[in-house]
């Protein structure tokens, strides 16, 4: 945890510097008679972020924060495995949307999570993976008139059938 605390503060300080540099593309000063320029607000706030990171580092040096005096690892092997399997599932979910449509991605994500992570039966898993995307389709496309991504052309027959049902 101790090493993680200072590494994270360092990363955030670098990000703050990047934001300051990026803010400076617009005037960051006080324009006489007009008030602050377009970059003023984000620049000085980013400086605030940078100063906060320095204060966090100072507290780390003095051992004032709980993480700075902790010898515990950030996460144990089980923790890393859990976070990677769940976080990875969410990343894959979003990545799949462009290929298999939002509803297809929902179905795949539910199968992955419910059966492989949650150890639920195939019956429950497949029931939910079928019913929920259809329910979402009826709610969003039918009731709310909100179109979700439809993925690659091979998903079109599914949408044709569903649109025939709701229109």
């Amino acid at each position: 945890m101790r090493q993680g605390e200072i590494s994270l503060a360092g990363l955030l300080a670098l990000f703050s510097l990047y934001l300051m540099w990026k803010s400076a593309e617009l005037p960051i000063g006080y324009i006489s008679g007009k008030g602050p320029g377009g970059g003023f607000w984000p620049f000085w706030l980013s400086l605030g972020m940078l100063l906060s990171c320095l204060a966090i580092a100072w507290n780390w040096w003095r051992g004032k924060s709980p993480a700075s005096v902790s010898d515990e690892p950030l996460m144990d092997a089980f923790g890393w495995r859990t976070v990677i399997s769940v976080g990875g599932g969410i990343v894959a979910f979003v990545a799949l949307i462009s290929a298999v449509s939002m509803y297809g991605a929902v179905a795949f994500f539910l199968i992955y999570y419910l059966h492989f992570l949650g150890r639920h039966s195939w019956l429950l898993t497949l029931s939910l993976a079928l019913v929920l995307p259809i329910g979402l389709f009826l709610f969003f496309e039918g009731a709310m008139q909100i179109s979700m991504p439809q993925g690659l052309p091979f998903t079109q027959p599914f949408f044709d059938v569903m649109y025939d049902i709701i229109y």
Partner: protein
Amino acid sequence: MEVFSFLVSGIFTALEPINIGLILIGVTVGLFIGAMPGLGSVNGVAILLPVTFLVPPASAIIFLAAIYYGAMYGGAISSVTLGIPGASTAVATTFDGRPLALQGRASLALVTAALASFVGGTVATVFFTLFAPLLATVALNFGPPEIFALMLLAFATFVGLGGDDIPKTIFSICFGLVLATVGFDTISGEPRLVLFDIQGFLRGIGFIVLAIGVYGIGEMLWTIEQTRGEITTTNPKMTAKGLVSDTKEAVRRGWKGTWIGSLLGFFVGVLPAAGATPGSLMSYGVAKMVSKTPHEYGNGSPDGVAAPEAANNSASTGAMLPMLTLGIPGSPTTAILLGGMVIWGLTPGPRLFVDQSEFVWGLIGSFYISNLAAVLINLAFIPLFVWMLRMPFTILAPLIFMLSIVGGFAASRSMHDLWLIVIFGIGAFFLRKFDYPLAPAVLAIVLGPIAEPTMRQSLLLSSGDPMIFFTRPVAGPITVIAIFLILLPAFKILRRKREAAAN
């Protein structure tokens, strides 16, 4: 007496069969739309606006107002049950609603939210009935300096919200405010902070993207990692007897927050450009500040649920006031209602109360009826929402992730924003591991888009002289109070140090 007779006739108009039917449908639809993360009253009102052309104007606006009310009630449901504030107005509800749900007291949180919303909505409607024209004039005197001072006050009431680590809290606030500036500079119209030159950032970063990332993904990952995937909620039971005892407890432990939220929410809601979000945040902050047990806030205080919920309903009614009397919409939803009124051939403004009194009083009457319908329908559905929490966590968790992603897309219609939600979620998980408070960042991204433009507009008005915030009769006192509240923790630390040195 004249007001009373107008009101009675308005209530009778609202009770006509067609109107009461529309109220019941509108409130129910609004409740479910509001309960969906990413969707709020604005979606419901916008989508159902064309439906209203089938009925007379008075019935049409009554229907839309009922959806608006229902959605404001519904916002609390996703905050409590899923831990995701579905709309910015329900951010503060998450702070105590979610801890209550995790303690197996979701029904108490939901009952408190429903009752507080009812009181907030009713108090606001009474104010609306009695003082509409007067308050509209007061609201008109609120210019950019006054609104900025109010935003400063909203931040000041939240100084105590962060954790004990002050640098991390300040980092979080600044981070949220910087994120709110991404996109375009509203004054000059130039692109600003287009990060890594990715064009998607030109759209800016919406509140909902950060909120869903932090609460829907980051917080869930943290919970799964901490509890190792075991069920985190104690098994909530919902019985008729339990509902009665929850109602009693909600009244006993939530009345103070309810009144603070009802009064403060209305007055903030009336102000153009302020609206229900700052109203609910300020009410939470003030309720915590005046509480004898501030340490309970953030750990499941019914007052902490009641204050923002009363305020957001009260403010929603308040926001109707400048819309009807001055033609100035205070929120995106009231802007759509205003558009509807224009299409129906009604002209909002001071003459509306004279020229279309039947319409106006029918609408005001419907506020009372909608409020009553909303609280009853909401209470009736609480067992369903609590039942959701009884699902095994390995079913509930993927449903929350699914709703976060689908709701996130519905709110922004952009894959860029979906990736941002994932990045914010994973980032929030690691920040949470190192005790960075994230609520201040979410609040800052909500208030930032109001605070920065009003500050700069004020300085343009004063030719760059910052004294404008101190010399105006309304802005001055608010600014001074805000600065005092911001500095209060520093004074307390100094006093403590001096006392320690003296001892």
